[in-house]
Every structure is written in C-alpha cells, then in structure tokens.
C-alpha cells in the first residue's frame, strides 16, 4: 500500500499542497496531469529524494517519512531511466539484488537476455527503458514508482512489455504508482489520479 497523508512540499518556486490518497496493496494506480503539475516531485517525495514540509508517507502501513530511500522498500523507474553508464546491462539489473536467478528470469521475461553483456550506452532508448524497469523489479520491491517508463517503446515490443509487467505485478503483488501521459499505458491502471498545479485534483476507479 502507498499512502500519502496530507503531503505538502516546496521545491524552488513550485509547491505541492495537501496531497492525500491511498493506493491499495497490489493495485496499479495511474497518475496523469499536465507537464509541471508536480507528478515527478510527488514520486520523489514518496521515494525519499524530497522531504515533505507537511504530512506523511506510508508504505505497507509503515510511516516511512523520516526513512532514507534505501529503507522504504520502494522501487523507482525514473523518467529517462538513469541507467548507470559505467555498468553493463547485467550489472545494472543486478545492482539491487544478489539473486542471480531472479535477474536472469526477469531479463528472460522481458526479452533482453541477449543484451546482458552490452554496455548500456549501446542500447536503444526502448531497450534502456526495459533495463530500467528490470533493474527496479529485481529487488522485488513492495511498491514501485514508474515515471513515464514505456514512452520510448513502440509496437510489438511495447505490448509484450506491458503484458509481462501486468502479469508480474499481479504475481508479486506489487503496489504501483505510475505517471504517464499515454492512454495505452494508463489502461494498465485499476485506479486513476489526476494532478494539476501541485494538487491531486481527482481520484477514482479507472476501470472495474
């Protein structure tokens, strides 16, 4: 479960105000909204990069507001991936886990086992996004924050990745908060939130 309880924060001149919502355990919540509405900042607050000025963040029922990012049990796929450029694909995916079996099964599941020895600089934009997703999934986080994770994927590969991700999320019971502008991606969600000017402006079931 991901809970934001009356979260407020200020980053430069931008302000997030009284953000209050719950994403139930194993749910996939889509967060939409215009550019610069505060979506990425909200993910950074939940993951621990930005400290809120008011309110609390709870993960799986525990208040993690004062916890360091590594103690929150929250995975993150940032916009643009942020793969570690000095490491290979294999080293990136296994960065947060020592379980080689999980690493290879995730890589196989998302169809990138042939890329494992490559430097990430040699990967295409779409391949990088898949590697970033695999890297975040490998430690099997309780909650996962996705920031436009599939924007560089196209056609057949995109539908395979979306399907595999949905299956894995259901199998592992991961709670997902997913920022996207894409309606195809948004269809993955069972809940939908919308954000504008630092406020969560609507919440409700996306589909039943």
């Amino acid at each position, binding site marked *: 479960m991901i809970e934001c309880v009356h979260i407020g924060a200020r980053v430069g001149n931008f302000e997030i105000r009284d953000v209050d919502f719950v994403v139930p355990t194993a749910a996939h919540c889509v967060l939409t909204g215009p550019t610069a509405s505060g979506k990425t900042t909200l993910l950074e607050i939940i993951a*621990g990069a930005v400290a809120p000025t008011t309110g609390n963040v709870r993960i799986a029922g525990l208040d993690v507001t004062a916890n360091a990012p*590594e103690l*929150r049990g*929250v995975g993150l796929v940032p916009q643009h991936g942020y793969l570690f450029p000095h490491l290979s694909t294999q080293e990136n995916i296994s960065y947060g886990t020592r379980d080689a079996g999980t690493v290879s099964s995730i890589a196989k599941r998302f169809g990138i086992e042939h890329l494992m020895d490559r430097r990430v600089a040699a990967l295409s934009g779409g391949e990088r996004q898949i590697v970033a997703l695999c890297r975040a999934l490998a430690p099997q986080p309780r909650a996962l924050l996705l920031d436009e994770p599939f924007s560089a994927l196209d056609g057949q590969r995109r539908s395979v990745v979306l399907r595999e991700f949905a299956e894995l999320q259901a199998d592992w019971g991961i709670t997902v908060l997913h920022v996207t502008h894409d309606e195809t991606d948004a269809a993955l969600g069972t809940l939908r939130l919308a954000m504008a000017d630092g406020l969560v402006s609507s919440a409700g079931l996306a589909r039943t």
Partner: protein
Amino acid sequence: MRAARNNISVAHATAWLLGALLLLFLAVPIILLVGLGASGLGDALRDPATIGALETTFVTATTATLIAAVCGSPIAYALSRSSFRGRSLVAAIVDLPLLIPHPVAGIAILLLVSRDTTFGSALLDMGLRVVGTPAGIVAAMLFVSAPLYISAAREAFARVDKRFEFVARTLGDTSWTAFRRVTFPLARRGLASAAIVTWARAVSEFGAVVVLAYNPKVVSVLSYDRFTTGGLRDALPIAATLVLVSIVPLIALRALRYDRSSEAV
C-alpha cells in the same frame, strides 16, 4: 553593406592577429628555453644534484597531491552536493590561497609551523620538523595546489547527475555505498584530471617552497639556485628539465580528455 563586410573582415583579422601574438608570447620563451637547454640536458640528468632534486620534487608533489585528493574530495563533494550552514565560508577558505602571492603563502605557513609557535613546537616534540625538510615542501605545495584540486573535483562531482545516486539508494545503497559504486566511478576521470593539475601545480611551485625549505632542493629551487650562482647558462638545463617534467601531466590530461570524448555517447 560592403563597408560593413569590410569592417567585419578587419575585426576578424585584428582578433586573429592579437590571438596569434599572445600564442607566440606564450610558446616562444618555452621553445627557446627547451631548445637552448637541451644541449646540456644529458649532463644535467647525470648530475646528482639534478637527480636528487627530481626525486625530491616527484616524491613531495605526489605526496601533496595524495593528501589533497584524500582530504579535498570530501570537501569538493560537500560543496557540489550539499547546501549546509557555512558553505560560503568553506568555499571562500578554499579559494583564499589562490589569491595570495606564493611567497606570502610560504610566510603564512611558516608562522604556523616554525619552532617558535605552539603548533610548530608540538610538531617538533612529535619528531616532525617541517621547516627545511621535505615535510615543509609538501606543506607549501599542498597549500598552493589543494584549492585547484578541490575546485576541479567539485566540478567533476557536479557533472554527475545526483539522480544516479538517488536511484542507487532506491536499490538499497546507503549514501556511502551509492557514492562508492556510482558517483565515484562516474567522476573518476574528472578526479584524475584534478589530481594531474594539482600535481603539475605542485611540481612548478617555487615561491612558497623557497620560504619553507630552500633545502632539500626541488627542481624549481635548483634552477633558481643555478641562475643566481652560475647565471643563465647553468640554469638552462635544469629549467628545461622542469619544462619537460611539466609536459608529462599535460600529455596525461590530453589523453584523459581524448579518452572521455571517444567514450561519449
């Protein structure tokens, strides 16, 4: 229209001419020095005084660089990443030695470490004599070159997007392990460049060194010593040696930059 184009051509030609004059001013004295000093280079490199000065220079400059890297990297990292109380003061202290004439820097260090001071006498009690020893040379080199290391290392750390570190922490790293596994490897070329610049600055230091330790002689002091005792003819081979030693870090820096550009994606 034509007059305007002519004006631009004249401006370009003037700019090129002025730039070329400055380049000549920078290059010609060095070329002359190496060219004229080269004939005596063989004898100079067989001279025990030169060999001793080269050894002293290499050891003290390397020691000063290592100290600057070990002690300066945390300062550089903090300045590049954190906004803490007193940050401006720390930045000003780091920049201060760059603004002081180097003999004055030597005098300032002398005030701290001479036997007449509490600190200096405490060091002597511990068996560490600074004035007139390699330790004094290291202190002088460190004082004038550490700010360069911190400044360059700060830029190297700043070039590494802090989101890499943050992603590493969401994958279970503490702040230290994220630094060790991600930030340091990504900044290492910049840090190596910083160390090379620091080493080169330390090797070429004269003003602060000569105040703290005329002996044992480093190459810069030896060339000055030969100039004052034997004139230009005696000083030239040593000076040429110093120039050639200084070219090594320049080549290393170029190699690092070439390597980085060939790796860029």
